[in-house]
C-alpha cells in the first residue's frame, strides 16, 4: 500500500500495470477501482498553459503513507496505491492516481474514493497556474 511522489512524468496506466504485475497475485482480487486526475487545459474560464505543483516533501509523503494505511484499515483491501506528481505540469499531464484492489467492488470503490477525497482535502500540495503572462495560486481544486 505505497504512496509515491513523482517529479518526472507519470503514466498512470503503465504504473498500475507494473505495480499489479510485481505486487499482486492474479486471482487474489476480484475488483480494482482506480482514479486518474489529469490537468485540464481549461480552468475557471481561462486557458491554462502551465501549472506548478508545490508540496511539503516530508509531510506530503507522511500524509499519503498514513492515508493508505487508513484506507487499508477501513476497508477489506488486498492492496492500494497512490502516486502524485509535483513540479511543472502541462495540460493533459496526469497528476494523481489512486487505486484500490479488493475481493469485492464495494470496498474497492469506497477506498479509491476515500483516497482521492482525503488527498484533495488535506494532502499538502499547492497549485500555481500560468495563464498568458500571469501566474496565480489556485484557491480551490477544480481540476478533477
Amino acid at each position, binding site marked *: 500500500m505505497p504512496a509515491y511522489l513523482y517529479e518526472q512524468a507519470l503514466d498512470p496506466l503503465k504504473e498500475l500495470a507494473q505495480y499489479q504485475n510485481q505486487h499482486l497475485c492474479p486471482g487474489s482480487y476480484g475488483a480494482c477501482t482506480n482514479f486518474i486526475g489529469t490537468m485540464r487545459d481549461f480552468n475557471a474560464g481561462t486557458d491554462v498553459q502551465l501549472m506548478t505543483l*508545490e*508540496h511539503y516533501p516530508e*509531510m506530503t509523503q*507522511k500524509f499519503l503513507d498514513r492515508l493508505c494505511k487508513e484506507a487499508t484499515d477501513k476497508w477489506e483491501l488486498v492492496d492500494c496505491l497512490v502516486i502524485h506528481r509535483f513540479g511543472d505540469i502541462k495540460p493533459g499531464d496526469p497528476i494523481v492516481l489512486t487505486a484500490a484492489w479488493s475481493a469485492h467492488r464495494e470496498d474497492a470503490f469506497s477506498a479509491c474514493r476515500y483516497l482521492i477525497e482525503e488527498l484533495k482535502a*488535506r494532502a499538502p500540495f499547492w*497549485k500555481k497556474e500560468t495563464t498568458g503572462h500571469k501566474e496565480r495560486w489556485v484557491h480551490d*481544486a477544480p481540476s478533477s
Partner: protein
Amino acid sequence: MLAMSIQVKFFASLREMLGMDSTQIEARANITIREIWDQVTSRDYPVNTLCAINMDYAKPDDVVNDGDEVAFFPPVTGG
C-alpha cells in the same frame, strides 16, 4: 529559561508573501504556533492559514517543543 530552537517553514502563497521559505529561530518555552508566527513575521495571522508541527496538522494554539519543525501554509489544492 532556556531558549528553544525551532525550524519554521512557509509554503506557496505564504512563502511568496513573506519572501521566506524557511528560518531557524530561538523561542521561549511554551510558545504556541500563533506566537511563533508573530515572532517571525510582521503580519496578522491570515485567516484560513493551516499549520503543522513535525509534519502533522496542528492548531494555532498548540504549544511547540524544542527541536520541532513548524510549518505554515494556505489551504491545499492537490489532486
